[in-house]
C-alpha cells in the first residue's frame, strides 16, 4: 500500500483511539481532508523543485510503532548535551519516556502535547495558539491530522527559564521502518526567556521518516533561542516545519546545524506581528555521501521597524546536495525594515551540488534589504600557507572550513552547545583538533 493510502486508512482508528475534545477533532479533520486532496509534495511544486521525497516515501513505515524497545540512559547519553542541567522531553518511537525526561509545572510548563490537548487546564492556551500559524500545506496538514504527541512548553510573563529545554525524539528501530509526526507548541509570554535544543535521533539504520511541526509564539519583549541539531543516521529523513510568530520587541533566533541524515528539509517560517522585532536565522550544513539538505526559509515583515538576519553556511563533499531557498517578504506597511540574508557555500567535490535561490518580495519603499550568495572552493594558497607552518592538509582544510562556519557558531549563546557542535564538526571532518578560534 502506498504511504498516502496507508495514512488515510489509518486515520479513523487513530482518532477513535485517543481521547480528544471536539475542537481539536475539527482541526484534525480539516487538516486530514486537506492532506487527502493535496497528497505528498512533488518536484512539480516550485517549493520542492530540488527535493524529491520519492525514495523516502517508498518505505513501508509503521505509523504507530507499538513494540517497546527499552533504551538505557547509557545508550543515549551522548545525544544529550549532558554537561548542562536541563529540562528534558524525550520521546522514544513517538512515545513519551518519563524515565529519560525531566519535566516541570513549577511556574512554567514543560510537558506533553498529549496532555495539553486533553486536559482542561491547558484549554485556553490550546484554543489561543494550537494550529494558529501552521500553514495548511501538505505536510503540515498531515502532521496536524495526526497531531497528538510532542513538546508543550508554556512560559508565563516575566519568567526567565534558567536551564535550557532539550527535546529529543529517538527511534529505536523496533519496526522495519518508522514514521513519526511530533507536534510541538512553544508559547513564550511577555518578557519571558527560554532556550530550546531540539534533536531527532535514530538509534539503528532502519529507515525513519519524521514529519515534525513546531509552532512558536513570542510575545512582546520575549526572547527565544532554538538550536536544532541534525546529525542523524544516514537512513533517517526529516521534514521540520517550524512556524514562529513574534510580537513587538521580541527576539527569536533559530540555529540549524545539519550534519547528517538522508533527506532533511527545513521549512522555517517567521511572521513579524509588531515593531522592533529581531528574527535571527542561522545555519551550518556539512554534508558528504549522498546526503541532501534543503533550507526553505521565510521571513514575513508585516509591520515597520523590524530586522531579520539570515546567515547560512554550507560545506558539501562527495555527492551531497544542498538547497537554500530564502524568501523575504516586506509588506507595504513594513517601512524601515532591515533584512539581511547571507548564504555562503563551499564545494569540496566536483560531484556536490548547491542550489541557492534568494527571493525578495518588497512592497515598501524605505527599507534595507540585502542578500548575498556565494559558492566557492577552499583557497589553495591558504592551504599551502597552513601546511608551510606545519599544519597537515587535512587539518588545514578542517581549520579553514571551521573558520568559514564560525560566524554562525559564534552567535550560539549556550557554551556547551557551541562545544558540542565544534566536536561534531571536528568528527565530521575527520580531525582531532580543538577549534577554539
Amino acid at each position: 500500500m502506498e504511504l498516502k493510502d496507508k495514512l488515510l486508512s489509518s486515520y479513523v482508528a487513530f482518532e477513535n483511539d485517543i481521547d480528544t475534545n471536539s475542537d481539536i477533532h475539527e482541526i484534525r479533520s480539516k487538516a486530514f481532508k486537506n492532506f487527502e486532496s493535496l497528497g505528498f509534495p512533488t518536484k512539480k511544486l516550485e517549493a520542492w523543485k530540488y527535493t524529491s521525497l520519492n525514495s523516502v516515501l517508498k518505505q513501508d513505515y509503521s505509523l504507530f510503532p507499538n513494540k517497546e524497545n527499552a533504551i538505557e540512559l547509557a545508550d543515549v547519553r551522548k545525544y544529550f548535551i549532558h554537561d548542562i542541567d536541563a529540562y528534558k522531553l524525550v520521546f522514544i518511537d513517538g512515545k513519551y519516556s518519563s524515565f529519560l525526561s525531566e519535566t516541570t509545572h513549577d511556574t512554567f510548563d514543560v510537558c506533553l502535547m498529549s496532555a495539553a490537548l486533553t486536559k482542561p487546564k491547558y484549554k485556553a492556551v490550546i484554543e489561543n495558539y494550537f494550529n494558529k500559524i501552521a500553514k495548511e500545506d501538505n505536510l503540515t496538514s498531515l502532521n496536524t491530522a495526526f497531531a497528538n504527541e510532542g513538546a508543550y512548553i508554556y512560559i508565563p510573563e516575566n519568567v526567565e527559564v534558567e536551564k535550557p529545554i532539550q527535546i529529543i525524539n529517538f527511534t529505536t528501530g523496533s519496526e522495519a521502518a518508522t514514521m513519526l509526526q511530533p507536534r510541538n507548541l512553544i508559547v513564550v509570554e511577555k518578557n519571558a526567556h527560554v532556550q530550546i535544543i531540539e534533536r531527532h535521533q535514530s538509534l539503528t539504520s532502519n529507515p525513519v521518516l519524521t514529519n515534525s511541526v513546531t509552532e512558536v509564539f513570542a510575545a512582546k519583549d520575549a526572547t527565544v533561542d532554538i538550536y536544532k541539531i541534525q546529525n542523524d543516521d544516514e537512513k533517517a529523513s526529516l521534514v521540520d516545519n517550524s512556524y514562529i510568530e513574534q510580537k513587538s520587541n521580541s527576539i527569536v533566533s533559530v540555529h540549524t546545524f545539519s550534519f547528517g541524515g538522508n533527506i532533511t528539509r527545513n521549512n522555517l517560517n517567521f511572521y513579524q506581528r509588531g515593531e522592533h522585532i529581531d528574527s535571527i536565522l542561522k545555519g551550518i550544513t556539512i554534508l558528504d555521501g549522498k546526503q541532501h539538505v534543503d533550507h526553505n526559509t521565510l521571513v514575513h515583515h508585516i509591520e515597520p521597524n523590524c530586522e531579520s538576519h539570515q546567515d547560512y553556511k554550507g560545506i558539501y563533499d562527495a555527492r551531497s546536495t544542498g538547497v537554500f531557498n530564502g524568501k523575504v517578504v516586506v509588506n507595504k506597511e513594513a517601512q524601515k525594515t532591515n533584512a539581511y540574508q547571507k548564504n555562503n557555500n563551499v564545494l569540496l567535490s566536483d560531484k556536490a551540488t548547491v542550489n541557492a535561490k534568494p527571493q525578495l518580495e518588497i512592497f515598501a519603499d524605505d527599507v534595507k534589504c540585502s542578500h548575498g550568495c556565494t559558492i566557492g572552493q577552499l583557497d589553495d594558497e591558504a592551504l599551502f600557507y597552513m601546511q608551510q607552518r606545519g599544519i597537515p592538509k587535512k587539518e588545514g582544510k578542517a581549520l579553514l572550513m571551521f573558520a568559514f562556519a564560525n560566524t554562525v557558531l559564534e552567535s550560539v549563546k549556550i557554551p556547551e552547545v557551541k562545544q558540542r557542535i565544534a566536536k561534531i564538526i571536528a568528527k565530521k571532518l575527520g580531525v582531532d583538533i580543538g577549534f577554539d578560534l
Partner: protein
Amino acid sequence: MLKIENLQASIDNKSILKGLNLEVKAGEVHAIMGPNGAGKSTLANIIAGKDDYEITAGTIELNGEDISELAPEERAHNGVFLSFQYPVEIPGVSVTNFIKTAINETRKAKGLEDMPAKDMLKMIREKSELLEIDRKFLSRSLNEGFSGGEKKRNEIFQMAMLEPKLAILDETDSGLDIDALRIVANGVNKLKSKDNAVIVITHYQRLLEYIVPDFVHVLHDGKIVKTGDASLALELEAKGYDWIKQELV
C-alpha cells in the same frame, strides 16, 4: 644544512630554474638577490614544497636527507620555514589559535604531547614582545586587514614561535617602513644561532644593513651567476644588475 644541486624546475612547461646550486651551512646567513623574474620566489616556494612547480632535475637535501618528495607540512616539521612575500589572509582563525595549532601539529608529528597551555602563553608573550606586537593583535583574524608591515611582523613572530632550522625570508622587507624593518631585522638577528640558518631573498640592499649576510648570491635567469660577501650587495645597490648580465655575455 641545505644543499641544492643542479635544481631545474618549471611551471606550466615554462622553465624557471635552470640548474641552480646552493649550499647553506648551519650558522650562516645567505642573501639571494636578483632582478624581477629571476626565479627568487620560485626557489623559495620549491624549497617549501609548493606543488605548482615541477622539478625536472636536481636534488634538495636538508641535513643530508632528500626533501624534494616531502609534503610541505613534513618539510615544516623538519625545520623549514618560509616567510611569505604575500602572507595569506585566513578570516575566522586568530593569530593565537593558528600558531597554537601549528606548534601542536608539529609536536604531534614528532610524537610529542600538545604544549601545555601555560608554556604556550609564556612563549607567545615573550616572542610577541620581541617583535613589539600588541596583545590585541594576537586575537585578530590571521592577516585579515593587516597592513603590509603587520603581516611581515606576524610572519617573523611565527618564525620565532616555530624555531625553524632553516628560515627563508621572501621579500620580507617589501612593504615595511624603516621602524618596522628595524624591528623585524632585530627579531631575526635575535633568533639566529650557530644551529640554524637564514636565507634572505631581497631586491634591495636595505634589509642587509640590518641582517648582515655571510654570502650574497645573484640569481639571474634561473641560475646563481655570482656569489660574494656582503660587499656584493652594496655593489649591486650602486650599479644595478645590468653589469652582471653583461659579464655573462
